[in-house]
């Protein structure tokens, strides 16, 4: 049985629609990450699950109960906020124990559970402090403890790590992952940081403009992006996208000098149509200029990343990134060739942006150029 079922959920503020019918099933114990650019409605969706925001249309079910009209406290969700939202006048122990106090848990048991929770989030030494006397990471832990102590069915996180510095963020990420393994509660985690999404999620939900673009495991989303938006949004550097058309030989034509043979046969209906071809920077290679089958390019600039480097090349105005793991033998201004393996290309409809999957189903046609 699924823990959370979202059916055709919509949200509009006055006349302004911000979530346009979202469908999503979340299994019990699953860690779901909602990923999307700023303003795409991630927080709004999360807050509708929490009950902090009214639902304009559709249904939300939690644990088999329709919760559309239910108060937040009846839904059994705990939430961790971006700014932590700790009660400034209460000590850490009081902050963590507040939900239990409201629920009428006797003091002795409350203390016991607060102590146990503090141990889980590593705050035993700080129980008597006020939030103002804690560091960002410690406040984050208090917020986490406050959610854990109630043993909720569902954890909701709204960009809880975005106020931390890079190093702490990585540490807290690992900690959240560990906590999830240990508690096993269904979790919904909102972020616009794709590394966070990739490392944390069992499944990712990529949102854009109030709609879901793709739902899948991190590997699926990375390897088979369902739309051009996902292809562009997930992955760093983002996927190279080129607009062109397919000729009758099954070759993608960007311009006269740049043609990429496609694997397998192409649906005849696609011939002559505009499509977007995508190649990950990691999938392309750089070769000497003029190598047969390579696309001519000039080196624009080189981004040094320590472990590797990203060479940004230029296709007469279109920038194309190539990631290299070995030292670059090129310099800015050099003319080079970009080699693309047909097996690594992704095709999207230029109009709708949807992935075109009909490749490689028919026997290959000999390529002529």
């Amino acid at each position, binding site marked *: 049985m699924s823990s959370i079922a979202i059916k055709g959920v919509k949200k509009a503020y006055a006349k302004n629609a911000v979530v346009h019918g979202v469908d999503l099933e979340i299994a019990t114990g699953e860690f779901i990450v909602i990923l999307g650019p700023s303003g795409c409605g991630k927080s709004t969706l999360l807050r509708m699950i929490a009950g902090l925001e009214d639902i304009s249309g559709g249904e939300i079910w939690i644990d088999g109960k329709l919760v559309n009209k239910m108060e937040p406290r009846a839904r059994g969700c*705990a939430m961790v906020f971006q700014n932590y939202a700790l009660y400034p006048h209460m000590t850490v122990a009081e902050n963590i124990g507040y*939900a239990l106090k409201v629920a009428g848990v006797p003091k002795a048991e409350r203390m016991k559970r607060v102590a146990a929770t503090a141990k889980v989030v590593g705050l035993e030494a700080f129980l008597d402090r006020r939030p103002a006397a804690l560091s960002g990471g410690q406040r984050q832990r208090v917020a986490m403890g406050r959610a854990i102590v109630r043993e909720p069915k569902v954890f909701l996180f709204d960009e809880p790590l975005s106020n931390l510095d890079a190093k702490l963020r990585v540490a807290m990420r690992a900690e959240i992952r560990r906590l999830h393994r240990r508690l096993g509660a269904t979790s919904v985690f909102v972020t616009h940081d794709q590394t966070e999404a990739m490392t944390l999620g069992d499944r990712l939900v990529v949102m854009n403009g109030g709609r879901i673009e793709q739902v899948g495991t991190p590997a699926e989303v990375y390897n088979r992006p369902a739309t051009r938006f996902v292809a562009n949004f997930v992955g760093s550097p983002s996927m190279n996208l080129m607009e062109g058309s397919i000729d009758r030989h099954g070759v993608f034509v960007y311009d006269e000098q740049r043609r990429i043979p496609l694997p397998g046969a192409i649906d005849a209906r696609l011939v002559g149509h505009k499509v977007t071809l995508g190649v990950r920077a990691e999938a392309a290679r750089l070769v000497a200029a003029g190598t047969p089958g390579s696309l001519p390019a000039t080196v624009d600039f080189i981004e040094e990343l320590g472990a590797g480097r990203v060479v940004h090349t230029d296709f007469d105005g279109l920038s194309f990134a190539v990631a290299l793991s070995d030292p670059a033998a090129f310099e800015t201004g050099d003319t080079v060739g970009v080699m693309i393996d047909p097996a690594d290309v992704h095709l999207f409809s230029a109009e709708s942006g949807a992935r075109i999957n009909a490749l490689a189903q028919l026997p290959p046609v000999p390529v002529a150029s």
Partner: protein
Amino acid sequence: MVERTPIFNAICQIVLFIGLLTVLLPFVIVIVAATHDIRAVNTVPMSMVPGSELFTNLHEAWVRADLGRKLLNSFLFAGTVAAGKVLLSSMAAFAIVYFRFPGRMLMFWLIFITLMLPLEVRIVPTYAVAANALAPFQAILNITGITWLIQTVSGLQVKLEWGLLNSYTGLILPLVATATGTFLYRQFYLTVPDELAEAAKMDGSGPVRFFVDILFPLSKPNMIALFTIMFVWSWNQYLWPMLITTDPNFGIAVTQLKHLIPSEFGLPDWNVAMAGTLIIMAPPLIVVILMQRWFVRGLISTEK
């Protein structure tokens, strides 16, 4: 920042010092006059060297103006007004800021408008209402014809009456119901992050719990500031208490001062009048001194 030079500093100091003298001089005169005997206080110019009659004068003023009873009344009056204001305005602001109900903005503006109608402006109608607090309802019944209807049907004449003259209720209530505090609280609530309310909601607390457990403790500096201002303000009220209390049992200290001021043909014992003044102005001074640390913090509410 203005450039700081020794000359500029000196000018500042001098101006401030003159200001201080201007403010303090009346107090000094009161204090000195309260220590003189009747002859010394009436010599022109009055000697600024303190005399030795302070305690005699204080005692005389205390007895003559029945200050024991009147100070008690004043404390009761000012304390209740201040406390009532804190309670009322914190709750009114809570409703306006945290609840979306129909007519919310109308309510807000109604409260806002009362700011422009201080008690002094509407003192006659307010007195009429205090004389019979149910008069407005009676008027509504009369105008709508319900009085007439009831009379024709049952033969009974509806006559609502609840007089508040010469009572603590009448003294206090009209001063509690004003808007200043509501605004101070509204401003404060607007600075409380929304997420705090949401976190409390997620923790399962309802509105009352949120108010008591979170807003109330957070607004403590505000509360103290408002209480202090309102205490001093109501302690110094003159017109309203004078109007509504004719029974000396309900008189307050400030209005009592006029019994100490020598009449035209009486003994010009200004020393006793000044001693009385000294006693009467002491309590607000003490309250301000005791509360000033929190008081300042409440007015500068940006501090987190």
